[in-house]
């Protein structure tokens, strides 16, 4: 299925209604709308993990969802969609359902990297036919900005504060996508909200998988948690990619392709130093930490390039 033009998508009413209560400027609802536009069908069931997007779209008695939607808890969206998909298979086999239905599960990084990891792993291993999307904003933002397994090293959150002894998160960001790749499912990708064509193409590829799960990890900055202006979320997603702090790539049946390689890799300072969560890095006393982050970014980017060159 080919993508439509941006103009055509803009004219579509969309399956996620406006009027939900996400923060002004939040890229996450845009990510959902992009994904649903890419799916381009009403025959789709969405399951959501507890988190910002679950809260803001379904405050009873209202719902922003024009398609079937289920939320039950924080850590179990993959198990929940497993049940929905299995019910579909059972009822289709009995002839009680005739149409083709697609399945999509969503969680933030807290619900996917951390508390939902076991459920995710189980669903991927069992091979349910569904697309799992993690919208990664690098922290438990819904509960008021705490560090998650996805929060990068040095970032300030309310549980990784900047103090006299510690300067933000002490540990590095978990590589969830690598964990998912290790399940050897048909399709795995990383995307970024700032590049709609790339993300929507990946959603279409993920939903087109006929015999198993697909997974997309999409970077979706939280301007509240990152301490940037509310209209800057997409720009910081772009800078994450231009500095190679975040990578856009996909693994199709084992073959890894990097979808975007910056012509000139920007220094990490361009991405970090204006974010409030990294403001301490502007202090010359913390220059070593900036250098450490740059070295880590360089190392991981090179590793990805190497993986791509070996992946034939």
């Amino acid at each position, binding site marked *: 299925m080919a993508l439509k033009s941006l103009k055509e998508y803009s004219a579509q009413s969309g399956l996620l209604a406006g009027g939900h209560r996400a923060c002004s400027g939040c890229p996450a609802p845009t990510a959902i709308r992009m994904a649903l536009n890419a799916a381009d069908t009403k025959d789709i069931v969405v399951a959501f993990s507890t988190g910002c997007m679950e809260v803001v779209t379904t405050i009873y008695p209202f719902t922003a969802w024009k398609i079937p939607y289920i939320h*039950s*808890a924080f850590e179990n969206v993959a198990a*929940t969609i497993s*049940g929905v998909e299995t*019910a579909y298979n059972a009822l289709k086999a009995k002839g009680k359902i005739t149409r083709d239905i697609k399945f999509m599960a969503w969680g933030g990084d807290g619900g996917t990297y951390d508390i939902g990891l076991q459920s995710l792993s*189980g669903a991927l291993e069992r091979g349910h036919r569904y697309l799992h999307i993690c919208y990664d904003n690098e922290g438990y933002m819904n509960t008021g900005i705490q560090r998650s397994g996805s929060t990068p090293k040095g970032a300030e959150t309310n549980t990784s504060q900047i103090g006299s002894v510690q300067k933000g998160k002490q540990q590095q960001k978990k590589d969830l996508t690598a964990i998912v790749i290790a399940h050897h499912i048909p399709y795995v990708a990383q995307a970024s909200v700032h590049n709609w064509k790339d993300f929507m193409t990946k959603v279409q590829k993920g939903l087109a998988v006929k015999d198993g799960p697909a997974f997309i990890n999409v970077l979706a900055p939280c301007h509240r948690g990152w301490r940037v202006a509310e209209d800057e979320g997409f720009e910081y997603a772009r800078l994450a990619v231009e500095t190679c702090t975040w990578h856009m790539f996909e693994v199709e049946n084992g073959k890894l392709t990097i979808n975007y390689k910056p012509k000139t890799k920007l220094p990490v300072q361009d991405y970090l130093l204006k974010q409030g969560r990294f403001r301490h890095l502007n202090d010359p006393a913390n220059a070593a930490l900036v250098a450490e982050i740059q070295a880590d970014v360089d190392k991981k980017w090179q590793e990805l390039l190497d993986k791509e060159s070996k992946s034939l």
Partner: protein
Amino acid sequence: MAKNVSLTGNDAVGTALKQINPDVAAVFPITPQTELMHKFAAFVANGEVDTHLITVESEHSAMSATIGAAAAGARSITATSSAGLAYMWEMLYIAASLRLPIVMPLVNRALSGPINIHCDHSDVMGMRDAGWIIIFAENTQEAYDNTVQAFRIAEHKNVLLPIAVCFDGFIISHTQEILQMLDDAEVKKFVGEYQPAYSLLDTDHPVTVGPLALPDYYFECKRQQIEGMKNAMSVIEEIGVEYGKLSGRAYGHFETYKLEDAETVLVGAGSTMGTARMAVDSLRAKGKKVGLLKIRTFRPFPADAIRKALGNAKTIGVLDRAVSFGMEGGPIFSEIRSVLFGKKINLKSYIYGLGGRDIFPHQIEDVFAEMERVTKDGNAGTTENYIGLRE
């Protein structure tokens, strides 16, 4: 035609589930429930059921997947014991509040720690307020019969609540007993076709399942659950009567044994009530006015009917295979004391069988003897008592 068969409790319930042929079953091993899952997985492997198995990676996911399947309009089951139930705890409440008629055999086992695989009721008592219908069985026959009835109760339009079908770990689950089993066709007809009012798979009529309800609506949701549970009282009775016409074994909320003129009465639930019946027979042969009240429905609790049934007793002992730490007496004792508020009846709590410790007829006879002394001298003594415990 019904036929007599010899099966363990796990095999009997597994066979009942085969006869019911649910759409989806989420399975995860835990002793002593595991053999039930084995039995059912064999039916799946041999094509004797149409059920699609979800071989989940944990009990939390078992209940989550069952919730997803039920919300998608599938007749959905899972089964567990002990720690597995504890791991589902969060999801138990969600299953009930989403009003999903999930049926779950619960093979009762002690909770850790110390870790212990044998029977007590500490697992089910932890889900007391989760919003599930909870029914107990005394033996393999009742475990089978309750399983068949459970679907009708849970799926009734005035109820729509999940149901835990409890039977004692090992004592029932692993003990071979003769039971009468209905024909597949009879079960199929009795249980009927599942027709959910809403389904996630009805994409022409999209529903939002599991929204956030804040202080302006949450309370009303709970009130509706209360109403569903209240409605279950009469539904359980109606279905128990209907099942009696089909099988010759009618069921109510509880069963009395030689209770009418009994002065000294024991109340309890589960397999030990069979042992207690033997003790009653032995004491009745000696002219003692003793009787039993065996609870089948623990939630909803049949308070009014139990108050009437126990109103003439002089001393009542309550057998609990679970503890409520920091409160004298076990969980069933608390309910019975509450039910009998204002009545001049001596009440004693007897905790027994924790972690699968055996209980014998002579021990129950001793309990009756102690209660008889209480009736005679009017001094109830300690409320808190233990059977078969080294102190």
